[in-house]
């Protein structure tokens, strides 16, 4: 019986690890000096970030006119990037919260990095709504607090304001969840630390963790509560982001399907990004035994599922446009497929609908190079999805007299690259200074004491 089970279910963590082995292996990248690869990556990331900072400064000094927007297309790269990054940020919470509640044990070795990715992605996302403002120095006006400007209150009917709440809530909860989950590991690092400074810093952040059963108990309870709090956020954040469009009157935006469609799209792109990062991380940090092929396989399956839902949503949009009989709506969708931005639309369809279908094949799912490439393709596709939704709907709306084209400028492209710079700078620092796998939780899913074959005694 036991043998059979062992045969059916591969252990989540391979290589018959002992507890101390896990601690050693996961702490190793933090404790040793980083390799050449890390330095090279960090150099590129910081360069991209610098480019972004320089361009944002220039843009704030001179004006939004440095972008390619016009009277007809008021949003393009800015909000596309915003939605793109928010979407990427989705997988982290989904893994940590929903999968925790569903007791998906395989999540334990990927959740830390996924959550970190969420936080950095939300940071990148948060930059864009601020810098896209004509007067970003007044961005704090979007916060409702008693003030001396009239008092100037905010407009609670504006989806942009909902965004402010949704994104900030999401960021705070994700951050707390991530941090709390890290406390036992920080304590481990503290205990292992040799240098005084290290000991002090890790000690400070491990909040006096003593490993007693009381702290563990509190920790478990808090994790559950936070998971409960974070779960609705997985749905709410992208629902609200989608309402930026869904509540408008612009054909192509004014769609009730947007909330579920956006949430699925976000999970889709989020998992693609987790795949991209995990495949690199496990290789670079030699964590193949923690982040196993099973993890990759599970995530690929989620990508197929959400990718198919997204594909269905595309079709539904077209059907409803035809079925509604609204000529403006119909035009927008025909224009997407056949108009001047058709290249973007078909890039989106091939990346998001067609390419994930390849993952039905086990062979492809277990080919890391292929999965890696696919995960990037999906992310390109999801970026284009937002671009298509935003630009093609705006550039030809109701009155043909105002129809216009949009072309990005160097500044916009550079700022987009800069956001990747910010993301990877943060992620590389994370990989350097914090344990990328949740040691405490991984230890919990080892088959220790169960006396199954291939497990430890």
């Amino acid at each position: 019986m036991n043998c059979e089970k062992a045969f059916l279910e591969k252990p989540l963590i391979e290589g018959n690890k002992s507890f101390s082995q896990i601690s050693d292996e996961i702490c190793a990248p933090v404790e040793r000096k980083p390799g050449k690869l890390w330095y090279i990556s960090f150099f590129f990331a910081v360069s991209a970030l610098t480019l972004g900072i320089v361009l944002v400064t220039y843009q704030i000094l001179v004006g939004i006119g440095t972008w390619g927007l016009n009277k007809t297309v008021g949003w393009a790269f800015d909000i596309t990037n915003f939605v793109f990054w928010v979407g990427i940020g989705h997988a982290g919470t989904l893994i940590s919260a929903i999968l925790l509640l569903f007791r998906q044990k395989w999540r334990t070795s990927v959740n830390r990095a996924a959550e970190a990715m969420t936080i950095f992605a939300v940071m990148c996302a948060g930059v864009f709504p601020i810098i896209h403002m004509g007067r970003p120095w007044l961005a704090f006006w979007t916060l409702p607090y008693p003030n001396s400007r009239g008092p100037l209150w905010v407009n609670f009917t504006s989806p942009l304001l909902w965004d402010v709440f949704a994104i900030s809530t999401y960021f705070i909860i994700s951050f707390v969840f991530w941090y709390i989950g890290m406390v036992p590991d920080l304590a481990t690092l503290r205990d292992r630390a040799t240098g005084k400074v290290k000991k002090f810093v890790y000690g400070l952040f491990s909040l006096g963790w003593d490993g007693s059963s009381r702290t563990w108990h509190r920790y478990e309870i808090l994790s559950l509560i936070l998971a409960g709090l974070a779960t609705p956020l997985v749905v709410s954040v992208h629902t609200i982001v989608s309402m930026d469009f869904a509540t408008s009157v612009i054909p192509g935006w004014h769609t009730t399907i947007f909330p579920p469609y956006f949430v699925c799209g976000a999970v889709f792109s989020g998992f693609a990004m987790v795949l991209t990062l995990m495949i690199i991380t496990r290789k670079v940090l030699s964590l193949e035994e923690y982040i196993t092929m099973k993890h990759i396989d599970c995530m690929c399956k989620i990508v197929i599922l959400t990718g198919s839902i997204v594909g269905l949503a595309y079709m539904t949009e077209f059907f409803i446009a035809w079925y509604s009989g609204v000529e403006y709506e119909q035009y927008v969708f025909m224009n997407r497929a056949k108009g001047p931005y058709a290249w973007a639309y078909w890039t989106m369809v091939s990346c998001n609908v067609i390419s994930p279908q390849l993952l039905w094949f086990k062979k492809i799912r277990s080919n890391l190079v292929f999965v890696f490439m696919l995960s990037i393709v999906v992310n390109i596709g999801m970026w284009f999805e937002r671009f298509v939704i935003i630009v093609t709907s705006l550039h030809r709306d109701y009155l043909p007299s105002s129809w216009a084209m949009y072309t990005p400028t160097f500044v916009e492209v550079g700022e987009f690259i800069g956001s990747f710079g910010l993301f990877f700078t943060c992620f590389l620092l994370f990989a350097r200074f914090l344990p990328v796998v949740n040691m405490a939780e991984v230890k919990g899913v080892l088959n220790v004491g169960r006396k199954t074959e291939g497990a430890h005694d």
Partner: protein
Amino acid sequence: MSQRDKKNQYWRSFDEKEQSPAFLKEVEEEFANGIPPGVDAETHEPLPVSRRDFLKYMGFGLASVAAACSPIPTEKAIPYLVQPEEIVPGKAYWYASTCFGCSSACGILVKTREGRPIKIEGNAESAINQGGLCATGQASVLELYDSGRLQGPLDQGKKVGWDNLDKAVLAKLNELQDSQKQIVFLTGTITSPTLKSTIDQFLSKYPNAKHVVYDAVSASGILDAHEFIFGKRILPHYRFDKARTIVSFGADFLGTWISPVEFAKQFSRGRKLDQKNMSQLYQFESGLSLTGANADIRVPLLPSQIDSSVLGLLECIETGEIKSAPQDNGIRSQIKKTAENLKKNKGRSLVVSNSNDIDVQNIVVRINQILGNYGHALRIDQGSNQKKGHDKSLDRLVHDMKNGQVEALFIYGNNPAYSYFDSKSFVEGLEKVSLKVSLDNRNHETAQLMDYHAPDHHFLESWGDSEPVEGVFHISQPTIRPVYSTRSIGESLNNWMGIKEDYQDTVKKYWEDQVFPYSGQLLFDSFWKKSVHDGCCKTNQFKPVKQRDAAQVISESVKQILKKSKMLESKQGWEIHLYESVALRDGQSANNPWLQELPDPITKLTWDNAANISSKDAKKLNVKQGDVIAIKVKGRTYKLPVVIQPGQASGSISLALGYGRTKAGKVGNGVGQNVYGMLNGSNANWNYYVQNALVSTTGTSEKLALTQTHYSLEGRPIFKDATLNQYKSDPAAGNKDQVDLVMLWEQHKTEGHSWGMAIDTNACIGCSGCMVGCQSENNVPVVGKEEVYHRREMSWIRLDRYYKGDEENPEVAFQPMMCQHCANAPCESVCPVLATVHSADGLNQQVYNRCVGTRYCANNCPYKVRRFNWFDYAHNKSFDYYMNDNAGKLALNPDVVVRSRGVMEKCSMCVQRIQEKKLEYRKQGKPLNSDDIKVACQQSCPSDAIVFGDLNDPKSQISKLLHKNKRRYQVLGELNVKPAVNYLTKIRNKE
């Protein structure tokens, strides 16, 4: 409080001891009389200092104490030592005057604030324009503050004092006293009778002096034909309102021809639907003009076919048969129909042509004579002075100059070195002239070649007058002290004649002698005062012209036309049609950024002139929009980008004049191409149609700054129209799909007033005057070619232009589009910071100070009328048009804030004008008559297409207009955004 406590308590009053409820209440409140509010409880008037104000003063006091520690920057703000009697800060004064933006000489009202003119509007009292004003006229206020104007007299390019200049010029003039060589005064059309007589007086002192009048875009042909037939060189005064059938051969009388505002006013009167007969307009032309766009029946034909078509029309009217007109494209059948209609409306029709060929104009005179239109729709006993140019005399002058027969040349109001077709000869001739004086206030292409510059005032700085039509007089009065050290031309001439007289007195004297006697008034003083106040007066002077039958004298013309059209038939190559653009006209105002950025009503092109070609020809040449083609005319090659223009006659290319200035100023230099050189003018009057051009592609392309790039309505029910017959059988024709939608929630209620607008697309001719009116009123910035190319023009009102049907000859629709002030405004609900909100009286308001610039409102606007400040447009060297300029800034309206970078803006329905009238009425204690409020676009409209007013007041003009009006519709009404702007369907008078 327990009993024991109570016992131990000290008490101050019986109330306290008893703990009465009144006492307890009193104790509860911190202040005995409540918190002092900001208003008086009884009178509801604000207290002198409220608590809030107190804190403000306190803060200010503290801040100023702190600020006193550093030196206060000194600014030159000097208070009035003696307050000028008439100037009240914040109050606008209006002066009646005359517009000299072109030679139409419309009556204007000049709005001045704190002693500076800031806006020009049409004078409703004027018999010419009757309240409307064109874009060029309205924009001319900006030229007053143009730092590119000459700022003082020049002697050989050096700055001198006026005394020195006078001395130098007089010394030269004295030398010429007895010269037998010519002394020539070369001017544009001068409508001012006083100036004309001053020039005559000046020239009379010299034995061989003459006054040559030259118009860059000439009507010499009409004048010559009338001289030939009636013996008097006169331009008829056209009355388009008196004609039921109007036939125009190439004359763009609604856009640029002779007196467009006046004609637009007349035309729109004839197009009213409430009268018995709506007039019908036939247009025969090559390039699509504004008039052609408004024509009921438009016949596109080649320039070379127009002349014979005129002849064909005459034949058809006379005999019922056509012998001469071109055979192709059903032109003959159209002419036949036209002739039938004309014959039906004898005495109530009008045929006009812009041809500069005396033969063609002779035929036109004949046609109008047969139809009995003289004395009705065109009058020569009270003729027009708006075009006086004589082509031949300039040709002769150039010839004489080259032969060294001209000793002195004075130029004023024209620029032949730029606009004469053979400018090279002119410049060569000029070198042989010994005294060259320019009286223009710009150092333009011709003025640069002159020795002396005695710059004239801008017309807003000087006294003057005009007589655009015989018997109609306008006064022109200064509205500001001269901005620069300029001097009025009249005064210069007076000085050079040794007359020490203020030009104001010269004008007054002329009026006393020449105008007053015919005015029917008793006292000159009161007549003068009234004229200056009204800006205009009418006299009952008739100068009857002996009627002569043209039939006997036109046989030669018929032969000539036949000969020419025979010749043309055999010729190959492209035909060029040169036209004045609505914005820049002949190019005189090229340095005006408002006009440069005003999109052409038809092509929607700004900051450029382009080669308009038909799509058929574009395919033939294998070029697309923006590709540069090389046009070779008379051995010279012109390279222009292509605009593919629906309605353009295939085989022809239309080019706008007025571009390609080299010495216009910082704004106008190098914009577009100068195509005046293409004009044909060797032995007859200058011809604005050129044959035998060679066209080749260059393989390069240029950016075209178009404000609208999509032509078609895509079948959307945005613009609604019907034919007259459909309308007669059902007034709701074309507007059947208008339904009132249900609201899911309670409607917002407008209290008191509810501002709204009605736009009659049947009246709107698309002239774009409203765009400049709005720009001037609301400080709308100019953004330049590059930014317009990026689709970032800032205009609050735009004219959407759509085509319908056949690409070769489409129906054209104009739709003024501005903020619709929706009751359920999609922009309002999406702004996160409440920067755009609805007022109680139905306005959608944009609060610039609150705006953080998310642009969500603009995205969510179905009409795309919101404009974002992508850059700082004021005080920015990159936008050096007028807001970056100390002088140019004076043209800004102090009632409207100049918007900063990063905020959204849009039409406010001229809220400052609403507020002004509200206050005025409140002061008088009367209820507001909303018809008294005229928003800027409405005011400037020469065709009265825009009505603004209170929708809640059943007596207002707008309520009456819209009440049960079956033509009423709202653009995108199906979105249920409930716009406050209503449109009325266009009715076309055709089958």
